[in-house]
């Protein structure tokens, strides 16, 4: 993933390594740094753990992207194999003409296969021993088996079988599995509604020609001897589809780059036939492009989630090194006193940091690949629940060398740079204060240089904020004003106490982060993941700063508990005293907890909103239509309105509205030059217009939604798109606006039609997978409007309204059995909507699980901090024990301290998460259709809080026990 980042990351990595190598040439620095590393192996391991997790999460995100990319590419291997280009003709005459014109390509050295076949859709049934199994959407092919075996040679064609003869058939593994049959058994195919019995002569893998079909779908195929299908079609007065497959030279992926050249050569050979509908399709190139985009989108979603974990990891590193410096303060002071320059202090820490970063890079890479593998398998399972049956993606775990290098170098560089920046601050330690363990001298007046810098930076960020806010650019709209507020702190500190200046800046950042989207409602329209990262950080950091500055006010309610003259009261006093005294350390731990918990709660709340809106969504997506039926275009139901509501279905089906469909490619009016989108033109009839689906928006010139439906039904120039038109699976962006113009292109002829968007349908689930050939974005228009597009139009679907109390499951089974010869597939629309929600929920849960790794960083950090705190406070603990603190009081104090920090962090994150989701719920267009009261997932949030606090408590049990076991005489270091 992200090969464009590779040179930058490798460059930064090389600079870091060279710098470390240079520093290692200084014997004093080398000795100081390396002895610190080896002095306490357990602590070295704990320090490295933080950056290990950071590196692991980066690499895991990249591996998820790699794997999705590879899984989609696998379709190219499984389904297309050697097939690079296809030309599909609807008439035998045109098909023969295409084959004749393309025959010249056989001599082209760039082409290693040319094959013309006949195909159509049919239903296949097996009835034996009381068992009936059916596949309503099998693809049947007629071809020359010898030619098929040679197609794409020397690479395998995927269909190397003997001709089955006039009564035989070769089927692929998908169809065999679907029917539960093997070679030697008999299958009945309904070819153009007429039964045709054939004995299976062979079962071939669903790869290459063995899995080929429509687009990139995985197909259930049957192959017949020459003459079988064409004769059945002729008997029914129909023409099968003629398809010419072309294989470019080379194996599956090697051949793809030749696509543009071969396509041009084919179009040249086809001449006028292209305009007559015999267009060249490039399915393999389309699949490979789709793979790249799908991998990038999913990878970026996980990287977005991972980035919060990485931020937590960076904070852990900062915290650990600040603590290390605190522990070695006296040592550092003495070293500085005897002549160690500031840059040498930085150098010593840099070497130490490089050692930790190196451990992190190596171990993190291994852990990251493991996490990636786990996430991939879970993600694929969830993604596949969107896709019915055979169109599921095969899980292909894949790690590219680019991702490994990117992950390892990014992890190293982040850890190294964090340590170097932290050590610059450490190196500024006042020598006397360090040696005598005193507070550094307080500068009562801000230095003039800092004030000037503050003025310049504030002015610059304010200036940068203006265009960012004006254009509603997501990330910078949050970032620049926040940075302006932070930059103004030194300036404000000249006018008021520092605490007041920090409070003002924190309030400004928090307020802006919460309310920016009410001022600029289009802020999320660019669908950038960076917007969410900046928003989360701004909210969490500002809230943590406010809490840290005003702990004394917040702790007033527990003052009575702290003042109690009991061991519990004394434990509580200690538990609060240390975190409030160590503001930086506590603040960074709070930030870790709150930033991760904020996002977890945000996801929980979004799920709660969606779940609360399922019933409403079903109504919105179905408008009371309960079932969709799809049947074979080659064996259509002649009059679905009267047939499907009659006979045994008379009392069950109240109303039927036929639907016509046509596949096309559409553009995205929000994107200047984006890739074409696969769309399906859905032509509806009067009944649907009279009882329509809910619209999110419609042309402002129209008085109401019904007027919009009337307009689209009566005027072919207008269409509806759905709210998710063009969505690729990342964060929701701006929807297509009514009034936009969409260009629809016939993929076969290239003919273009412009249509005006009259409105946006809230939920188009009722039309998903309506062609049975994978996902296409539905575009709704009148049935007559579909005819005007010039695409292949099929009357092959209908929506059914059922009587109250009808068992939908029984009805769909019964419909499929009755119309088996028509290849009818019935879909329960409520179940389809609920399945979409369920899959979305699972995906959110997966991301929550991924985020839990960030929480693990926070909890680990708390454990590391408490381990170091035991060492740091050894003497104080000894004194307290000498004064009369019981061992159990010390233990309780440590446990209570970690609880105090965890509770504060979790509460900040939870409150911000609930408030942010509420603001999104109130203001974001994505929730516009949710006409429900704002729900709060108390139970789920409660469980998350409980688990986090228990885990935090467990992380502190060890250090607390160690603290309680400290012997006072040893700790106070009274030595003779």
């Amino acid at each position: 993933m992200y090969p464009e980042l590779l040179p930058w990351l490798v460059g930064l990595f090389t600079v870091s390594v060279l710098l470390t190598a240079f520093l290692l040439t200084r014997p004093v620095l080398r000795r100081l740094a390396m002895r610190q590393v080896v002095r306490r192996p357990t602590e070295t391991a704990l320090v490295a753990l933080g950056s290990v997790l950071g590196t692991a999460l980066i690499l895991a995100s990249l591996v998820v992207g790699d794997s999705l990319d590879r899984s989609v590419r696998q379709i190219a291997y499984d389904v297309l194999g050697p097939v690079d280009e296809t030309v599909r003709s609807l008439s035998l005459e045109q098909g023969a003409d295409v084959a004749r014109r393309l025959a010249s390509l056989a001599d082209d050295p760039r082409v290693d296969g040319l094959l013309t076949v006949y195909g159509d859709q049919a239903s296949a049934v097996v009835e034996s021993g009381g068992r009936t199994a059916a596949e309503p959407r099998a693809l049947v092919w007629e071809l020359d088996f010898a030619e098929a075996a040679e197609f794409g040679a020397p690479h395998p064609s995927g269909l190397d079988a003997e001709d089955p003869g006039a009564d035989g058939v070769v089927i692929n593994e998908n169809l065999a599995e679907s029917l539960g049959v093997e070679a030697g058994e008999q299958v009945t195919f309904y070819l153009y509604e007429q039964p045709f019995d054939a004995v299976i002569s062979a079962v071939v893998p669903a790869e290459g020609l063995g899995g080929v079909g429509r687009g990139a779908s995985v197909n259930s195929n049957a192959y017949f001897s020459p003459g079988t299908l064409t004769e059945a079609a002729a008997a029914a007065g129909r023409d099968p589809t003629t398809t010419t497959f072309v294989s470019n030279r080379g194996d599956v992926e090697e051949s793809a780059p030749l696509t543009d050249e071969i396509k041009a050569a084919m179009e040249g050979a086809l001449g006028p036939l292209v305009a007559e509908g015999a267009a060249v399709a490039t399915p393999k190139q389309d699949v490979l492009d789709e793979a790249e985009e799908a991998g990038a989108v999913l990878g970026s979603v996980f990287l977005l989630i991972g980035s919060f974990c990485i931020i937590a990891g960076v904070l852990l590193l900062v915290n650990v090194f600040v603590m290390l410096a605190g522990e070695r303060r006296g040592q550092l002071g003495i070293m500085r006193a005897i002549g160690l320059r500031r840059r040498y202090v930085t150098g010593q820490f840099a070497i130490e940091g490089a050692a930790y970063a190196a451990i992190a890079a190596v171990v993190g890479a291994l852990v990251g690949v493991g996490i990636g593998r786990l996430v991939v398998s879970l993600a694929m399972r969830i993604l596949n629940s969107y896709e019915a049956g055979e169109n599921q993606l095969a899980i292909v775990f894949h790690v590219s060398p680019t991702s490994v290098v990117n992950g390892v170098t990014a992890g190293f560089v982040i850890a190294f740079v964090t340590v170097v920046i932290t050590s610059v601050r450490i190196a500024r330690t006042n020598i006397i204060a360090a040696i005598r363990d005193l507070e550094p001298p307080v500068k009562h007046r801000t230095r003039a240089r800092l004030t000037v810098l503050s003025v310049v930076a504030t002015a610059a960020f304010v200036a940068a904020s203006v265009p960012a806010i004006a254009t509603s650019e997501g990330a910078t709209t949050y970032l620049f004003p926040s940075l302006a507020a932070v930059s103004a702190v030194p300036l404000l500190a000249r006018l008021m106490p520092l605490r007041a200046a920090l409070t003002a800046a924190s309030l400004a950042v928090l307020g802006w982060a919460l309310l920016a989207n009410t001022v600029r409602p289009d802020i999320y329209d660019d669908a950038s993941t960076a917007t969410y990262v900046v928003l989360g950080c701004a909210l969490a950091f500002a809230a943590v700063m406010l809490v840290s500055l005003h702990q004394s006010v917040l702790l007033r309610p527990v003052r009575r508990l702290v003042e109690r003259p009991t061991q519990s009261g004394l434990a509580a006093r200690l538990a609060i005293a240390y975190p409030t005294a160590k503001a930086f350390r506590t603040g960074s731990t709070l930030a870790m907890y709150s930033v991760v918990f904020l996002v977890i709660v945000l996801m929980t709340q979004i799920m709660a909103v969606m779940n609360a809106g399922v019933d409403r969504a079903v109504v919105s997506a179905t408008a009371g239509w309960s079932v969709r039926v799809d049947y074979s275009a080659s064996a259509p139901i002649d009059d679905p309105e009267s047939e499907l509501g009659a006979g045994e279905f008379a009392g069950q089906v109240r109303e039927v509205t036929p639907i016509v469909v046509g596949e096309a490619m559409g553009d995205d009016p929000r994107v200047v030059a984006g890739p074409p989108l696969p769309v399906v033109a859905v032509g509806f009839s009067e009944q649907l217009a009279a009882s329509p689906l809910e619209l999110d928006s419609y042309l402002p010139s129209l008085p109401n939604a019904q007027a919009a439906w009337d307009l689209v039904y009566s005027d072919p120039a207008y269409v509806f798109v759905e709210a998710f038109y063009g969505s690729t699976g990342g964060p929701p962006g701006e929807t297509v606006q009514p009034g936009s113009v969409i260009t629809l292109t016939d993929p076969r002829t290239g003919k273009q039609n412009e249509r005006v968007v009259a409105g946006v349908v809230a939920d188009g689930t009722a039309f998903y997978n309506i062609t049975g050939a994978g996902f296409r974005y539905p575009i709704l228009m009148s049935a007559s409007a579909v005819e005007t597009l010039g695409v292949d139009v099929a009357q092959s679907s209908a929506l059914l309204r059922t009587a109250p109390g009808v068992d939908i499951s029984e009805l769909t089974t019964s419909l499929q059995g009755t119309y088996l010869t028509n290849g009818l597939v019935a879909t329960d629309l409520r179940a389809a909507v609920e399945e979409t929600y369920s899959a979305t929920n699972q995906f959110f849960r997966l991301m929550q699980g991924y985020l839990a790794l960030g929480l693990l960083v926070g909890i680990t950090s708390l454990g590391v901090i408490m381990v170091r705190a035991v060492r740091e406070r050894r003497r104080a603990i000894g004194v307290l024990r000498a004064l009369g603190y019981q061992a159990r009081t010390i233990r309780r104090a440590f446990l209570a301290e970690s609880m105090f920090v965890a509770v504060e962090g979790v509460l900040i994150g939870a409150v911000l998460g609930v408030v942010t989701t509420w603001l999104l719920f109130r203001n974001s267009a994505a929730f516009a259709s949710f006409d429900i009261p704002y729900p709060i997932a108390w139970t789920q949030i409660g469980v998350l809080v409980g688990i986090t606090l228990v885990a935090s408590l467990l992380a502190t049990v060890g250090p607390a026990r160690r603290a309680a076991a400290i012997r006072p005489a040893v700790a106070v270091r009274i030595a003779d």
Partner: protein
Amino acid sequence: MAASGKRHATNQQPLLRAESVTKIYRTGQQEVKALDRLDITVRSGEMLAVMGPSGSGKTTLLNCLSGLDDIDGGRVLVEGRDLFAMSDHERTAHRARAMGFIFQAFNLIPVFNAVENVELPLLLVGVKAREARTRATEMLTRVGLGERAAHRPNELSGGEQQRVAIARALVARPAIVWADEPTGNLDTVMATQVMDLLRQLNDEGQTIVLVTHDLAIGHSAKRLVRMLDGHLVHDEMKERVPG
């Protein structure tokens, strides 16, 4: 006990009695007897100075008699009870109730301010928060730091920190105060101030056991014991030499 020199006799009741106390430090195969069957009695109202060269066992004696450290033989009787027959819980409670400590390195709790440090022993014995704060403030005023009550240790000078430590050691009116080199980290002026304060408190009846290297301080105590190689080699009651 291998003591020599003039033996001190007093009518005061023994506050603490150590009998044949032995303490051994083990490092690897090596054993060092820091205290070797040592006997000593501390009486109420005494100001006892323990002196001796480095490694003679002064601090170990203080740690063992106060119950901060375990012993390997003998017993220490306080109020008629063996300190080391008590559980850790009981011994800790006894320290809170009956002992105060002053350390060379002051050892104030860095996250508490002066008055919070001083009130800790009172809270440990169950004094109500308000009363504890009042008494701690009074004690700080008594040691001359009434104005510095809200300052954290790192905002105080060494002498001020040690006076806070003295206030902390005395605020709960313990039966005995253990002081380990209380002036070791102070300059002469500060050291004099601190010793004057301790003597004044002793004159008011406070029992104090202090470990010191400083001859002048040792001679200014009412009773001086000398240690060598884990043995008490000298125990002398004398008139106090003005500091």
